[in-house]
């Protein structure tokens, strides 16, 4: 009994519970399995076919991705003779880790009366965004380490896109911080008890959402790994378990960004139930995730220079407008209750 | 295309081209010009000025018995609505042992890939062609060219 209590008290400590169980590692795993299954199933229904079916037949093939991952684990990892071996193998692993880092500072409501914030600081918004811009660097490194022309071009495309979407992303988040006067995400969420940010400053929400789609390679911005010109972009030469990892990286980034988006713009975990406020958060996150993967069935992909032009003409202007809007609202007396 | 229209074009071509080459008809509605290889470019330019603006096909036929290869250019027009109903065949005979001919790429750019395919499969070298390179066969192909009559299929 003492032993079980000890284990439970370790597991339920916030610093362990959040990165490991919710909204951390295990939750991400489950979310990704369901998300990729949902993406394939939605696309299949729209395209008049069935999609994954055979693995767990009665539930419509839900565990298909688990079967794929098991297959990847038993396949042979092929490393190229001429590539930089250490970096070739290390960069997907580091990219995956870097993707999960922002979860340390993003709050996620409360579950079982535990406040789900791993590391409370008063600059958590800045920390989350800064940690999230580590991943594209490793994607570019992957492109170079493969010693493959297609991978190189794919990596460079990621570099071009990175410069285009990072600026609107940061500026939109900045406009929210200006509105509520704090860089702490917990304060931002607490200030949305009555009105969500998306109704006060829709420009910021829009440009953050589109920048989020651009950064995680969702259609119509799936340019890095487009398989019409580049075989799989920077991920061309990866096989077996490394392939599973690199394919999971965009989805994990999508999950982390969606958490941030819901916290900043959609009211976080409000309307909240005492002690179990994360449930509202989970529902909102799932809706946004499903919408993001639904876009695959509707849009083709943009050309690289068109996507960059969207980043700089449309999104950059919108984010500047959103900052102006925030400043005007502040100048007019701010939001009531603050 | 009525017979009168064909006859009119026939007479025009006859007056324009003979005695450099011979014009004849291939019933029911095709015209044939037989020329020698020296007058080829001259006739081609005359035909281009008349209104024939592209080449549809370059057919090379091997006659090992007579030791000649006959090259036929099928020519027609896109622009001119009357001429587009006629396919004109421009035939020349070349020596089988030497297998060289003059290219008509400068007159009709549409002949470029067709002549290149003829070089590849029949082994005829076109002088003046921008790139006498292999198109379909491997670059290091050394055997007899496939469309010649002495190439036996059973070998491959």
């Amino acid at each position: 009994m003492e032993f079980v209590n000890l284990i439970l008290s370790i597991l339920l400590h916030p610093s362990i519970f959040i990165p490991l169980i919710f909204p951390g590692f295990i939750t991400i795993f489950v979310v990704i399995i369901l998300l990729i299954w949902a993406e394939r199933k939605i696309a299949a229904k729209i395209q008049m076919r069935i999609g994954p079916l055979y693995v767990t037949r009665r539930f419509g093939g839900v565990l298909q991705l688990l079967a794929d991952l098991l297959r990847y684990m038993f396949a042979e990892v092929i490393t190229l003779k001429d590539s930089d071996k250490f970096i070739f193998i290390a960069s997907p692993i580091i990219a995956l880790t870097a993707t999960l880092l922002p979860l340390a500072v993003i709050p996620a409501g409360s579950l079982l009366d535990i406040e789900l914030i791993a590391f409370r600081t008063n600059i958590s918004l800045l920390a989350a965004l800064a940690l999230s811009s580590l991943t594209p660097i490793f994607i570019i490194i992957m492109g170079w380490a493969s010693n493959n022309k297609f991978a190189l071009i794919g990596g460079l495309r990621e570099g071009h896109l990175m410069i285009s979407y990072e600026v609107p992303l940061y500026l939109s988040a900045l406009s929210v911080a200006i509105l509520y006067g704090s860089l702490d995400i917990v304060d931002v969420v607490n200030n949305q008890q009555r009105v969500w940010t998306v109704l006060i400053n829709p420009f910021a929400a829009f440009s953050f959402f589109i920048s989020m789609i651009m950064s995680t390679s969702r259609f119509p911005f799936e340019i890095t790994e487009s398989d019409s010109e580049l075989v799989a972009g920077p991920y061309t030469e990866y096989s077996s378990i490394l392939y599973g990892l690199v394919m999971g990286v965009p989805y994990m980034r999508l999950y982390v960004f969606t958490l941030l988006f819901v916290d900043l713009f959609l009211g976080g975990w409000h309307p909240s139930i005492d002690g179990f406020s994360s449930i509202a958060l989970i529902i909102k996150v799932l809706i946004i995730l499903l919408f993001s993967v639904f876009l695959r069935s509707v849009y083709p992909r943009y050309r690289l220079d068109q996507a960059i032009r969207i980043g700089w003409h449309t999104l950059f202007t919108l984010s500047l407008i959103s900052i102006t809007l925030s400043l005007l609202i502040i100048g007019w007396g701010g939001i009531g209750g603050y | 295309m009525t017979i009168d229209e064909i006859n009119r074009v026939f007479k025009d071509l006859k007056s324009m081209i003979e005695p450099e080459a011979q014009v004849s008809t291939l019933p029911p509605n095709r015209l044939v010009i037989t020329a020698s290889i020296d007058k080829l470019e001259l006739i081609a330019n005359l035909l281009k000025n008349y209104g024939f603006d592209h080449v549809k096909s370059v057919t090379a036929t091997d006659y090992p018995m007579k030791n000649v290869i006959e090259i036929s250019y099928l020519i027609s027009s896109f622009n001119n609505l009357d001429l587009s109903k006629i396919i004109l065949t421009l035939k020349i005979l070349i020596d089988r042992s030497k297998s060289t001919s003059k290219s008509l790429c400068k007159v009709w750019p549409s002949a470029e890939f067709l002549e290149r395919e003829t070089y590849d499969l029949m082994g005829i070298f076109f002088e003046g062609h921008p790139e006498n390179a292999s198109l379909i066969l491997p670059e290091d192909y050394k055997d007899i060219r496939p469309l010649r009559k002495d190439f036996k299929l059973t070998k491959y």
Partner: protein
Amino acid sequence: MLKQRNSEKEIELFIGPQHPASGHMRFIGRVDGDIFTNFIPDPGWVHRGIEKIAENRKWVQIIPLVERAAILDAANMNIGYVMALEKLLDIEPPPRAQYLRTLLCEINRITSHLYGFGIAGIMIGSSTFYMWPFADREPLIDIAQLITGARLTYSYMIPGGVRRDLPQGFREKVLKALKYIERRLNNDYFRIFFDNPVTKARYQGVGVLKRNDAIKLGIVGPNLRASNVKYDVRKVEPYAAYPELEFDVAYREEGDCYARLLVRVEEIRQSIKIIRQILDKLPQGPIIHKKYEKLISLKKLEECQKTGILGLPAIFTALRPPAGEVISRVEAARGELIFHIISTGELRPYRLRMVTPSFRNIVLFRELISGARVMDFPAIYGSIDYFPPESDR
């Protein structure tokens, strides 16, 4: 990997046969930043030697051979060859056979264009517009199976006529299939793809082919008609039942990728119009020429009256057309197809020359893509509707 030329660094890309978007074909391109400075197509990976094999086959055996040059478009390859053979034999098939041949050719044109749409869709990343046209080919392939008994390679037309007659209940099934295709084309395809702003951004103004260049390079098919040249073999030299059918030639003036796709959409509409006219105007009568009908046994003819299946009469295996040279042309789905046959009165042809529309369009790769961006390559490839097996024969 990097080539240093005049202090300019270019990457040489081999978009080879092992590539998700190259088809059975290789391209060699030099990339400087994001622009192709030089782009060379390298065909020949699917060369099966149809012209050489044809010199060793009997005249009727060549009918399945030329069909397989482009399986999607089998009926048009078939009719081109059989028309050339009939010119040598100096016979004309009966009117009912002409109408049946036209019916199959138009069905093939629609399925071939739908295949082209699917490839264009997946090339720019729209997986929905890849699955939908491929699925929508099925009603038409079922109709073709009703007429001929096979889904894709029909070998339906023989010198002098066709091999089978129409089954019962045919007309209702065809009209139902046509209504379905029309509804899908006019509503769903436009909403998901042609009116999609991303598609328009990828296709409009890309790969512009001017009128003079198109004529000079000898381009054929919808690519030519999208550059403001109203050339269609069915109007220039009408064959089969086309002299008696009313339809318009689809053309556009801009000459960019979007125009090429819209020309194909309009051609599908015109084909549907033609098929409806054929069903109304179909004359009664025999399906094979009198000369050959007399040579078939009476019992076989009675069986044909009952079931509508004639099969291939055994007399054709010893067919010896007179000596001569003949040229025939038809409008296949991708453009103009030329057959040039030289016969010396034997059991086998002396020379069979077949120029397919895709081979005449191959020069477009060099002309349109050199100077374009790297991501324009799939867009242009999809819009030209190039089919490598048809080009290599």
